[in-house]
């Protein structure tokens, strides 16, 4: 379970470039809940995920995972609780290390790393079994450097790595945005499988309204560092893209109107 309360973050505080990325986010995600996150550019979606992962300390507010307050923990200390897949396929894997080495690194996420062999023969067998269902032929290329793989292959590998040690929270930030439509579809299907199989508590950011509606059992919309729409269950299932867009502009419009009132 993920509990975010009163989360506030402004970048470049006190300078002319100050931006309020998060303005008091309250969000509770139950264990096993799959939340899709939408919102326009700069709404604060990536910032929310980065705050949960521990990339920066918030100005105010708290983050708790499974009831444990992790607000003051640096990213590497939270890693045993958090799995991540980034928008950039190059970010989630080490290009210079082999496929099996990358998987081995992920198999020790948040655990102690000693002086035993990095990859054992038992690991290899397990990795082959894990990779085979992807249907990408990676199981026969365990010793290839990851730098040789395509973006889609790397993203599939990253997704597998993020779930290798089941995380308490899985964070996916536009993880299909850099891929061609066909590959994006495959990665998305894989995402569904991985999340369902592990009953993972998941936050998935996307700009694709279709994806946001089709996947997951809850949808939140962000705007200017706030959550402005939060739908789950039946309500989300019945929603169409048109409804969603209409509500998006309605909500944004209200804000524009109030801004205008402030100005005049």
């Amino acid at each position: 379970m993920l509990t975010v309360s009163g989360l506030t973050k402004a970048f470049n505080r006190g300078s002319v470039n100050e931006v309020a990325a998060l303005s008091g986010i309250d969000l509770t995600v139950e264990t096993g809940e799959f939340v899709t996150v939408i919102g326009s550019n700069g709404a604060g979606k990536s910032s929310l995920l980065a705050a949960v992962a521990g990339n920066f300390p918030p100005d105010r507010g708290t983050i708790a995972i499974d009831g444990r307050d992790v607000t003051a923990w640096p990213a590497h200390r939270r890693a045993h609780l958090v799995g991540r897949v980034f928008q950039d396929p190059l970010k989630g894997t080490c290009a210079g290390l082999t496929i099996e080495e990358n998987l081995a690194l992920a198999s020790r996420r948040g655990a102690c790393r000693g002086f035993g062999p990095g990859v054992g023969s038992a690991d290899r067998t397990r990795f082959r079994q894990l990779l085979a269902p992807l249907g990408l032929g990676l199981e026969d290329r365990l010793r290839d450097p990851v730098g040789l793989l395509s973006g889609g292959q790397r993203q599939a590998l990253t997704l597998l790595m993020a779930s290798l040690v089941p995380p308490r929270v899985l964070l996916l930030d536009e993880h299909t945005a850099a891929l061609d439509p066909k590959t994006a579809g495959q990665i998305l299907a894989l995402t569904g499988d991985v999340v369902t199989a592990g009953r993972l508590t998941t936050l998935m950011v996307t700009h694709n309204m279709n994806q946001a509606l089709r996947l997951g059992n809850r949808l939140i919309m962000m705007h200017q560092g706030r959550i402005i729409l939060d739908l789950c269950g039946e309500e989300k299932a019945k929603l169409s893209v048109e409804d969603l867009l209409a509500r998006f502009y309605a909500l944004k419009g209200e804000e524009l109107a109030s801004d205008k009132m402030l100005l005049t």
Partner: protein
Amino acid sequence: MLSWYAFNGALEQGFVYGLTALGVYLTFRVLDFPDLTVDGSLPLGAAVSTVAITAGWPPALSILAAAAAGFCAGAVTGLLNTRLHILHLLASILTMIALYSVNIRIMGRPNLTLLGKPTVLDAITGLNLSYFGAPLFFGIIALVAGAALVWFLSTAFGQAMRAAGDNPTMITAQGVDTRTMIVLGVGLSNALVAAGGGLVAQNQGAADVNMGVGTIVAGLASVIIGETVLGKGGVLRGVAAALVGSVLYRLAIALALSFKLGSFALTPSDLKLVTALLVVAALVAPQLKTRMRRR
């Protein structure tokens, strides 16, 4: 051409400085941390080893002391960079400069001789290997150090260190503090370099505070020359390339020194220029290769 004697000498130098090349490989290639501390940690190792032997320590133990001192020097650079947020290059230059004073303090003067004192080479003097002895001896040391480094980098911990150099974002998300890895990695690199410094001092019979000048360029030249010959990719290849490169570099230097054109001959003081040209050549070679292929 190169005399047999000069060839042997180059081989010996190549292996003695092999540890330095391994250290430079670890920072530049594995950690992606350009570290100039080595110019100070090579004489540091030499100073510690020489002083320890003078104080009656066994020569082999003095090498371990040198390595420990080198580790501390590297860790200081790592801490300056990761905790005080000083740019890596600058952090390493600061440590290097500071080590100049430290090294004179350790020796009590700018240089110290080992004349008449025991050295690690005493182990082979009884074996009657004539002038093969030293290259063989140092060759074995370099190979053992190289093998140990390959082993280390293939352990779970070593893998995490490589990942920290390759992709800090990724390895942080896997629960590793990249700062710790940098401190330990740069420390280990300088431990290797300082151990090499101890060997150099014992081999030439003296430590000198200025003996480290250009260590980084020589080390880098070795790594790059080795990569040009053996190619890139993988730890085993990288380590082998550093050692092979170290020998090739010393051979190239010896060759340059034996070069005569009429009354013109290169002198030892020209070697820095030769090294710089060698590094440039080795850096340009792969570009030329691809350009040729494209034609």
